[in-house]
């Protein structure tokens, strides 16, 4: 599964993307796995309320099923415009 990070999540993780093997059922489960990968990841996911998730480029909630997902992106609330 391709994991993408944007904005300060990217900076804290130290990578824009990573390919991982996972059987996480939801983004929430996936976050729990990712936090175990190191202190950067742990810091990035510290405040779960500040994190938004897109699965295959569609915004979803943290309990959305991940079955069949190819790309999961994590980022803070958007600030465009």
């Amino acid at each position: 599964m391709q994991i993408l990070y944007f904005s300060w999540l990217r900076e804290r993780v130290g990578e824009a993307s990573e390919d991982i093997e996972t059987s996480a059922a939801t983004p929430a489960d996936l976050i729990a796995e990712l936090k175990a990968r190191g202190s950067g990841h742990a810091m990035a996911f510290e405040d779960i309320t500040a994190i938004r998730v897109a699965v295959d480029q569609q915004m979803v909630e943290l309990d959305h099923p991940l079955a069949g997902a190819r790309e999961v992106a994590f980022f803070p609330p958007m600030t465009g415009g």
Partner: protein
Amino acid sequence: MSVSVQTEDFDIAAEIDALTSSDRNIGAVVTFSGLVREMTDAGAIQTMELEHYPGMTERALEEIVEQARARWPLQGVRLIHRYGPLAPGDRIVLVVTASRHREAAFDAAAFLMDYLKTKAPFWKKESGAAGAAWVDAREADDRATARWERPTSTPSTQQS
């Protein structure tokens, strides 16, 4: 092609002309341009870096345009959003709406901006003498988006 995500600047007059020149029954054209402001709560900035999510950005903007077209009788819509490094005074975003009457053009342009602020994957980082910081999402923007989700299609313009 009503949506563009690009690093280059845009030409507002050319975009208006492209949208209106072939249709003599457009009575109203509204444009919104967003510019980089120099003064922020943290002091003067020198640069603003706009990051985005290639692929999802275009898809999100196209969905927003489809929603606007479904809600208002629009004869034309154009949406351009820049990314990459920008400086104070630079243009960031352009919305152009064209309709027979002004109400639809005004409302659709305001809707597009409100939705874009909270649903298009862009993130701003400002850098100045005090260092660099990611811009916080404005609670007012969430409220501005929420007002369009009430049962009536043309809500109060009150936002904050």
